[in-house]
């Protein structure tokens, strides 16, 4: 069995690594029926943080192919990826193509493989925001519709697929990011003290904020609301730590947006440092999808700076609140969490063994049979 994992954005690399580790474990245990994994990196995100240090720090295998696509308009980026991924698929002739999440790399990998009759497996299938204006939503819907194997993190995602007439090949395995958090939280112990000292804060005495989504960072009005809310919270309630992309810093400066002194704006941090900061925060404010869940798994209350979320279960559980980019709602939501929710978070995202389950399903005979040989084109 030979599979190709197509990755490109940072979160995908981390998710794929969980599956890679499960495959490595499997291969050690079953040397007579190993899974060969080839990793193709589209180059969608490829910056300093993606250097060898990144791969080493996170115990991630380095990609076999770097396709070097880089950034560009949606059409350009996806187009280039399609052509280059196809070339790799034709060269490697895998039995299966595995894609992760909802980026252009996900879409391009799925389409290129489907057209070559290579079965597609989608990890993190069935998520829907029901907002068609989000490019990620288009990527999700299209990828799910061309996939043969759909690995869903939750019951909601299984139900979403059923509503679109997709039930064959659907497996609820839990969330691979939960696997990742469990794996990395152990690794943060060695750097925890260092990063807290570097930022100048103590455990559970700060709020952590992240703002990176285009809907917030490219919209002066929304960004202003968020900045004002963070300033007020920091001044009256508790210090706020905000790792911010230099691009957003520049954008804010150009729009005359400033922070009160108690907001500690820091350079972007590595993934492990981020997990450490999340784990030690008293509360998290974020517009990231992944951070909402990480907060949940770490039992840290979360205020989401968006109008909707794919992770509705975190909101339903009481551990996450949607506040949009509305100053008053953000401040109110934070105040609401001065008392922590009573119940501990439930395991709605599986048991942290999603990668192992995926690996097991890939070994099923019917899957191996389905993953036949590639036809000539």
């Amino acid at each position, binding site marked *: 069995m030979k599979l190709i994992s197509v990755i490109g954005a940072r979160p995908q690399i981390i998710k794929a690594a969980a599956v890679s580790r499960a495959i490595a474990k499997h291969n050690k245990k079953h040397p007579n029926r190993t899974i060969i994994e080839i990793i193709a990196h589209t180059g969608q995100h490829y910056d300093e943080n993606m250097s060898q240090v990144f791969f080493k720090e996170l115990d991630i295998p380095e990609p076999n192919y770097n396709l070097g696509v880089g950034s560009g*308009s*949606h*059409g*350009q980026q*996806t*187009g*280039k*990826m*399609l*052509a280059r*991924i*196809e070339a790799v698929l034709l060269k490697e002739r895998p039995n299966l193509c595995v894609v992760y999440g909802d980026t252009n790399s996900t*879409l391009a990998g799925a*389409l*290129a493989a*489907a*057209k*070559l*009759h290579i079965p597609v497996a989608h990890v993190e299938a069935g998520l829907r925001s029901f907002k*068609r*204006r989000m*490019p990620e939503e*288009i990527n999700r*819907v*299209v990828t799910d*519709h*061309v996939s*043969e194997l759909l690995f869903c993190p939750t019951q909601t995602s299984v139900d979403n697929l059923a*509503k*679109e*007439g997709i039930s064959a090949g659907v497996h609820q395995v839990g969330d691979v990011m939960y696997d990742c958090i469990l794996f990395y939280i152990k690794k943060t112990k060695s750097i925890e003290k260092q990063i807290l000292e570097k930022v100048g804060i103590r455990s559970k005495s700060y709020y952590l904020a992240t703002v990176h989504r285009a809907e917030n960072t490219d919209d002066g009005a929304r960004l202003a609301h968020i900045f004002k809310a963070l300033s007020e919270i920091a001044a009256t309630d508790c210090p706020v730590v905000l790792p911010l992309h230099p691009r957003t810093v520049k954008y804010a400066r150009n729009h005359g947006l400033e922070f009160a002194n108690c907001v500690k704006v820091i350079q972007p941090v590595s993934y492990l440092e981020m997990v450490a900061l999340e784990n030690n925060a008293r509360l998290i404010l974020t517009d990231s999808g992944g951070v909402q869940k990480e907060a949940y798994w770490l039992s840290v209350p979360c205020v989401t700076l968006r109008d909707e979320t794919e992770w509705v279960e975190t909101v339903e559980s009481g551990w996450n609140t949607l506040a949009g980019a509305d100053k008053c709602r953000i401040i109110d939501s934070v105040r609401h969490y001065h008392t922590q929710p009573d119940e501990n978070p439930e395991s709605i995202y599986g048991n942290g063994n999603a990668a192992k389950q995926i690996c097991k399903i890939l070994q099923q005979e019917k899957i191996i049979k389905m993953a036949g040989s590639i*036809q*000539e*084109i």
Partner: protein
Amino acid sequence: MKKRILIVAGARPNFVKIAPLMYEFGRHKRLFEVVLVHTGQHYDFEMSDVFFQNLKITKPDIHLNVGSVSHAVQTAKIMIAFEHAILEQKPDLVIVVGDVNSTLACSLVASKLNIRIAHVEAGLRSFDRTMPEEINRMVTDSLSDYLFVSEKNGLRNLKREGIDPNKIYFVGNVMIDTLSANLSIINESDILSRLRLTCNEYSVVTLHRPSNVDSAETIAEVFDILRAVSREVKMVYPIHPRTRKMIRKHKFSSKFEELGNLLLINPLSYIDFIKLVKESKFVITDSGGIQEETTSLGVPCLTMRENTERPVTIEEGTNYLVGRSKTKVLSFVKKIINGKSKNGSIPELWDGKSAKRIVKIISMIQ
């Protein structure tokens, strides 16, 4: 304000489908400004000046010139070029038709740029994902804002996929619009005398799908069937250059040429081809559109595939699915020759007015 509409066509059947739309939009010039984009997916012999004159469509306004390459490379090139076209033209709506790579690529680009998409011939499903067209159909429908459905089975398929019913419109078949509008010119075609054929005394073959012609094994099966049929009735096979190449590659050229009762000819113009089909005893095909055209013309059709995305042609029309089964083909041929094949009826709304319905619906879009 006029609605600005980009219509995309890439392959020959796409142009047959957009012709009636172009005509209808042209009748309402005060409401619409229409730009025709030719992706260049098919660009060769089939797309000559005669082809455009035949269908009475103006030449495309924008050429993307992508050419025939592998699926992903072609889709990629169309995406990059079409993104430029959209950013330059700033349309209110993009119309895509059918199920080719251009359909998929342009709807992906439009949806990412938040331009509304209308898909003409939505909802068709063969449920065979090894057909590249099936992927194109599913993806395009999942991205479209207006889905114009040609047969009732399409409504069921879209419902099953959870597509919002408010987006779906049952309008009938635009290809039949083109056929009806050109019927008098079709009747005047002299193709029969040019090929020295007599009305109702020959059959037509159009086989070009990779599943039938790309391997030596399948060509051998196809050849065996055609040889048997040609013993019963004269056959005419207008053949794609690509198919000719495949037959040559697998060393079947001389075998085909030696069949005395099978005439291999170059592809025909739309008008001549429909005339040829209309006056034939029956058609053997693996194409999508011809299954519909034969149903509309009441000509028996044997489809050499295991499935069809156009089941109404079987349920109500004159179509039979025969795969590559020689027994099936011969038994249906015998039935047809003995006048015992099904009569067929015209499916609902295949009345030559589908483009009118579509344009009316689009005119009401806010």
